[in-house]
C-alpha cells in the first residue's frame, strides 16, 4: 500500500543533474552593483557613504546601531553612483547603494588573501559573534535572519545540538551540494566556530541522500571528530525546512510560534557556515555568495560565486543567456522561489538560485473545484488541513483559521504542488495568515 510507506512531503522531479557536477566559479565580468540596504530580517540600515564617494573592497557601506541587523559591504573597489530605490527579489522596492566597480573582473579573495586559522581555544565566543556581526552575515538558506543574533543564546536556553543544513531539498538547486564537495574543510571550520560561539557540544551535518559525493567528502572530513556527525536524510521536499529537519533528526517539535532554540537546537545553512569561517579567518565580510543558475531556459546551467548586488540579468548573461522562449524567472528554487517581474533585481544575501523556466513550462490554469481528495492533508509536513485553510482564507473566516492553526504553516507549497485541481492552496493560506494577523492586531 503506497500510502503506508510514503512519508510526508512531496518529491518533485529533482533536475539537479543539470548543474550538480558544475564547479563553483566566480562570475566573470561584473557591471554596476545594486546593493539593497535591507537584506536581513530586522532593523533597517543607514548608508555610511554618499553619492560620489570612493569605496574600497570589503568596506562597510551601511550599518545600524540595532542589535537585530546585519551591515553591508562593498564587494569591490569603486565609486558610489547614487542611492536609489530599486526592485529586489522579494518583490518590494528598497533603497540600494549603486556602485560602479573599478575593474571588470571579480575576485572572491581579499587584497592580500591572508588566512589566519587560529586555534579554537584561542578565540572567544564573543570574538566569533563580533566577527559574524561585523561581516554582516545573515541566513543564506533564504531566511536572511542575522546570524549573530542566532548565536546569542539567552541564558535560560540550553542548546545541545548545532545542525548544519545541507539538505538542499529544493529541485534544481545544487549550490549547497557543490559547497560541501568543494569547500568541505571551510564548512567544517565554520561549524566548529559556530559551536564554539554557542558552547554547543554536538554538531550534525544533515544531507539528503541524493548527494552521495558530498556525503562521502563530509563523512571523511568528520572521521576524527567525535562530536560531529553526518546524517543522511531521505530525499523528500521539504526535508530542509527547519522544523521538519529538527523533527527528522532529533524527533523534537518546535512549538508553534517558537524557535529551534526552544527545543535546544540551532540550525544554520552550510553556506552560512562557510561565510562564518571566511569572516573569522580572513576578515571577509559577506560580499558574495554561491548560487545555482539552472532550468530549461538557460544555456549553461552552473554554479557561480556572485557578488551581492549583481543584477540577475548579468548572471543570466554569464551563464550563456536564455535558451528558447522564456516564461518565468524565479529567484530561488521552484517550490519556494519568487517569480521576478524585473531582471534588474539584484542577487542578495539570501539568493541561493536563479531558475529560468521556458514558456511551455509555465502553466496557466483555471483551478477545478476541490474534490476533497485530501492529498494536501496527506503531504502536509506539519499535519495541517490545507483544503480547509484555503476555504477559510477565501471566506476570511478568522476564527476558523485560528482553530485550524494557520500560523503553523511553513509555506512549503507541497499542498499546491500536489493538488490535482490545481488550486493555489499555499497562496491563500499566506493570505489567511495576513487576515489572522490583522484581526489580532486590531484587537
Amino acid at each position: 500500500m503506497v500510502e503506508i510507506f510514503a512519508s510526508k512531503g512531496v518529491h518533485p522531479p529533482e533536475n539537479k543533474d543539470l548543474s550538480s557536477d558544475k564547479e563553483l566559479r566566480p562570475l566573470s565580468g561584473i557591471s554596476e552593483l545594486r546593493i539593497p540596504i535591507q537584506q536581513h530580517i530586522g532593523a533597517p540600515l543607514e548608508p555610511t557613504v554618499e553619492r560620489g564617494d570612493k569605496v574600497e573592497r570589503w568596506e562597510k557601506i551601511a550599518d545600524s546601531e540595532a542589535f537585530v541587523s546585519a551591515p553591508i559591504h562593498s564587494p569591490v573597489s569603486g565609486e558610489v553612483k547614487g542611492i536609489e530605490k530599486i526592485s529586489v527579489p522579494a518583490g518590494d522596492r528598497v533603497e540600494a547603494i549603486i556602485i560602479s566597480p573599478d575593474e571588470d573582473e571579480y575576485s572572491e579573495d581579499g587584497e592580500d588573501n591572508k588566512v589566519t586559522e587560529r586555534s579554537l581555544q584561542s578565540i572567544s565566543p564573543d570574538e566569533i559573534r563580533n566577527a559574524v556581526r561585523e561581516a554582516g552575515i545573515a541566513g543564506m538558506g533564504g531566511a536572511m535572519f542575522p546570524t549573530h543574533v542566532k548565536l546569542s543564546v539567552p541564558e535560560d536556553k540550553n542548546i545541545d545540538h548545532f545542525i548544519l543544513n545541507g539538505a538542499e531539498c529544493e529541485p534544481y538547486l545544487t549550490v549547497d551540494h557543490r559547497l560541501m564537495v568543494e569547500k568541505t574543510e571551510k564548512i567544517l571550520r565554520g561549524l566548529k566556530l559556530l559551536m564554539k560561539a554557542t558552547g554547543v557540544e554536538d554538531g550534525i551535518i544533515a544531507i539528503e541522500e541524493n548527494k552521495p559525493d558530498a556525503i562521502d567528502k563530509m563523512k571523511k572530513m568528520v572521521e576524527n571528530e567525535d562530536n560531529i556527525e553526518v546524517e543522511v536524510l531521505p530525499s523528500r521536499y521539504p526535508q530542509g525546512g527547519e522544523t521538519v529537519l529538527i523533527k527528522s533528526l532529533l524527533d523534537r517539535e518546535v512549538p508553534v510560534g517558537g524557535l529551534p532554540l526552544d527545543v535546544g537546537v540551532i540550525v544554520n545553512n552550510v553556506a552560512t557556515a562557510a561565510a562564518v569561517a571566511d569572516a573569522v579567518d580572513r576578515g571577509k565580510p559577506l560580499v558574495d555568495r554561491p548560487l545555482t543558475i539552472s532550468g530549461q531556459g538557460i544555456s549553461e546551467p552552473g554554479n557561480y560565486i556572485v557578488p551581492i548586488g549583481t543584477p540577475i540579468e548579468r548572471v543570466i548573461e554569464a551563464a550563456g543567456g536564455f535558451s528558447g522562449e522564456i516564461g518565468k524567472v524565479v529567484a530561488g528554487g521552484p517550490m519556494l522561489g519568487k517569480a521576478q517581474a524585473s531582471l534588474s533585481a539584484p542577487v542578495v544575501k539570501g539568493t541561493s538560485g536563479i531558475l529560468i523556466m521556458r514558456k511551455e513550462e509555465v502553466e496557466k490554469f483555471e483551478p477545478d473545484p476541490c474534490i476533497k481528495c485530501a492529498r494536501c492533508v496527506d503531504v502536509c509536513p506539519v499535519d495541517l488541513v490545507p483544503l480547509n485553510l484555503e476555504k477559510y482564507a477565501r471566506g476570511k473566516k478568522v476564527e476558523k483559521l485560528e482553530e485550524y492553526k494557520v500560523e503553523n504553516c511553513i509555506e512549503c507549497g507541497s499542498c499546491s504542488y500536489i493538488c490535482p485541481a490545481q488550486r493555489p492552496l499555499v497562496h491563500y493560506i499566506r493570505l489567511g495568515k495576513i487576515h489572522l494577523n490583522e484581526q489580532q492586531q486590531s484587537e
Partner: protein
Amino acid sequence: MNSDELVVSSSPHVRDKETVLGIMWKVVLALIPATIWATYFFGLRSLSIVAVSILVCVLSEYAFQKIRGIKITISDGSAVLTGLLLALTLPPAVPLWVVAVGALVSITFGKQVFGGLGSNPFNPALVGRAFITAAYPVIMTTWTIDGQTMATPLAQYADGITTDYWRLFLGTIPGSLGETSALFLLVGAAYLIYSGILNWRIPVGMIATVLIFTGIIGHDPLFHLLAGSMILGAFYMATDMVTTPVTPLGRWIFGIGAGILVVLIRVWGGYEEGVMYAILLMNMTVPLVDRYTRPKSLGEVE
C-alpha cells in the same frame, strides 16, 4: 528579453501531473474489468444499462448547468463515473427507463442541487439508487441470470443456505451487475492503490470491521465479505473522495462506522443488503467527523 513577458505568480512554480480528470478516468478504468465480467456473465444487455446510465448522467449535468447558466463541466469525467457506478449497482433485468430515472436523480438531486462536483454531501450514484429502490422496490430486488429469477446468496444465507466461496469470489452468482465478482473488483482496486488514488484506510477499516463483527456474532465473516456489494461498496463507493473524510483518523472512523452499519442492517435490519444505506448514513457524519479529527499539527505541544 522584455520584462513585460515574464509571468509572475506565487510559488510553487512546478506542479504534480495528476489532475481531477485523470483521477476520474483512472477510477473508470479500474471498473472496466468488473464491467466486462458483467457483460460476459449477465449478457450484452448489461452494456445498454451502462450506456443509458452514463448518457443520462452526462445529459442531466449538461441540462442542469445550461439552465442555471453556469459553466458546463461534463468534461471533468465525474458524471461519467457516477453513471458507471450507478449502472454497476443495478439488477440485470432493470428496465432502461428505471436506469434513466436513477441517473437523473443521481446527478440532479445527488450532486447538482448542492452546487456540483465537490459540494455534494452524499455519494451521487447511491442517492440515485436509493431513490429507485424506494420507488420501484420489486424491480430493484428481482435478480436474474439468463432470464431466470433467483435468490441472491445473501437472501439464501438468511434461510440457512450457504454459497461456495469460489463462486462468490469469481462472481458466478445472482446480484447487481458489477457487484458479483470480487476478483475483478479487486484487480481494479489494486490498480487504484498502485496509482495512489485510493484512500486505503476506509476499505481496510470497513472490511476489517465487517469481518470481526460478523465473526463475533457467529456469522461466516468470509461470506459477508464476498457476498453482496461489500467489495464494490468498500473500494469504490466508500472511497468517493468528495463524500468521505479528509483526515486520516476520520477515514478510519468512516470505514469502521460503515462496517458496523452494514452488519447491523444485514443481520438485524429489514433489508438483506445494507452497504448502500451504511455508506449514505456515514456520508452524513463527514463534516462532523472531519471537524473533530483535525490532526495535531507539528509543534502543537504543551
